[in-house]
């Protein structure tokens, strides 16, 4: 079983290949995040992976204030995806203070702290 990988590794490997996969419960049909071996809603243990649609809205947001010489201010937010799950992330492409609650955002795979990460940009149109 040396090739066996758990839900966390499965998610991270897909992310490293540029894919955002979300765990979905076979029993109750609800998505959840973060990945785990059971469904936190119905506690079923049969979980499948689905490609994330990538659309969501900023549920709440803050600006972490940091001195310019240490990299300057940056955004930290929690995004709710259309699938109903929430994740911490940041919105890139606009000033951190311009990220507002309910703003429509689109996911992309980028890098945070040197590791592949789900990031967001403002949705177009």
């Amino acid at each position: 079983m040396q090739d066996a990988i758990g839900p966390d590794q499965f998610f991270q490997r897909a992310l490293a290949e540029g894919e955002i996969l979300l765990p979905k419960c076979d029993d109750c049909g609800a998505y959840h995040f973060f990945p785990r071996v059971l469904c936190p809603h119905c506690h079923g243990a049969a979980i499948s992976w689905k490609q994330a649609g990538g659309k969501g809205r900023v549920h709440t947001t803050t600006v972490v204030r940091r001195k310019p010489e240490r990299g300057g201010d940056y955004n930290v937010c929690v995004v709710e995806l259309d699938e109903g799950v929430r994740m911490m992330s940041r919105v890139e492409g606009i000033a951190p203070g311009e990220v507002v609650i309910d703003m429509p955002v689109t996911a992309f795979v980028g890098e945070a702290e040197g590791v592949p990460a789900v990031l967001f940009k403002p949705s177009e149109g």
Partner: protein
Amino acid sequence: MTTELRGKSAIVGTGHAGFGEAHGLTAYDVMAQSALAALGDAGLNLSDVDGLFCTMMEDSMPALMAAEYLGIQPRFIDGTMSGGSSFVNYLTSATMALDAGLCDVALIVYGSNQRTASGRLVTASRPPAYEAPYNPRYPISAYAMAAARHMHEYGTTREQLADVAVAARAWAQRNPEAFERGPLTREDVLGARMVGDPLTVRDCCLVTDGGGAIVMVHADRARDFPKAPVYVLGSAAESSHRQISQMKDFTVTAARASGARAFAAAGVTPADIQAVELYDAFTINTILFLEDLGFCAKGEGGAFVEGGRIAPGGVLPVNTNGGGLSCVHPGMYGIFTVIEAARQIRGDAPGIQLKDIDLALAHGNGGVLSSQVTAILGSQNTL
């Protein structure tokens, strides 16, 4: 806790040490000084302690370290770590242990030297794996996002948040034990350095050293001690999440559930409470907990605290020692909500002593609004 445990245990001693800056002392030194102070208050010795309730930020087995340091061999220990709420939570386990005869003298104790050791919040917890890459500043980013959501949904203003800090300072100014006693206005809070929007550094708790301790015995023998006993009438907990991104509703905490059960156990209502001691790590906490514990309706917390309504002379005395915002905040403040509530009931509060206090509420918060624990304490008159 069920109503069967109402009034079964009592606080017979409280103590603290190292408030502000405890130069040259380790966290365990501060813990031990606090223990001695509380036992002295109760007229007891360390050798009387056979139940130990302790957690610290210093290592993974703090209750064992504390017992070893104190030179005791307790027959009951509880080192449950739910963050700053842990020490309010121990009121429940200590009451259960005392009532079951598992121990006779329960010592709840805590100490920290985070200010003189590092100058910042000391935490032993690892950043959650699915949040760490985004570099949230722990814990302020979590509370800032709760505040942002409360402002968005209910129109709560930064001015109302600021008034929480101003009220805390007004209490602290009359408390010689409080660390920050200088003047503080709403404008000072609003104009202070922004740390995590919408919170400025004055919306945040202090970073101090300090320790606290509580001695509890069974109610059957609670009147045999020098100080008037303070009874645990009800205590209840609820935990909702660990990572802030997993909090279901950023404007409603598990305090709604813990509070309702604590009130039911004690057989009282929010209107009966004469002093309210809340874990105010950030100004938004006070607003959230006043709402969730039933002192005002959801969304009305901002208006409830506005313009000195929870300051000395206001409509409800909240955080009468100055709270974590202005009195002391050594990393886990929860124990100090219990100590101040007990002292208000005993009549020996260090700052403003309210008149004829029979019922007080202490509320602990742990993690990032994750663990909520409510305790209702009462005088002999409330039994």
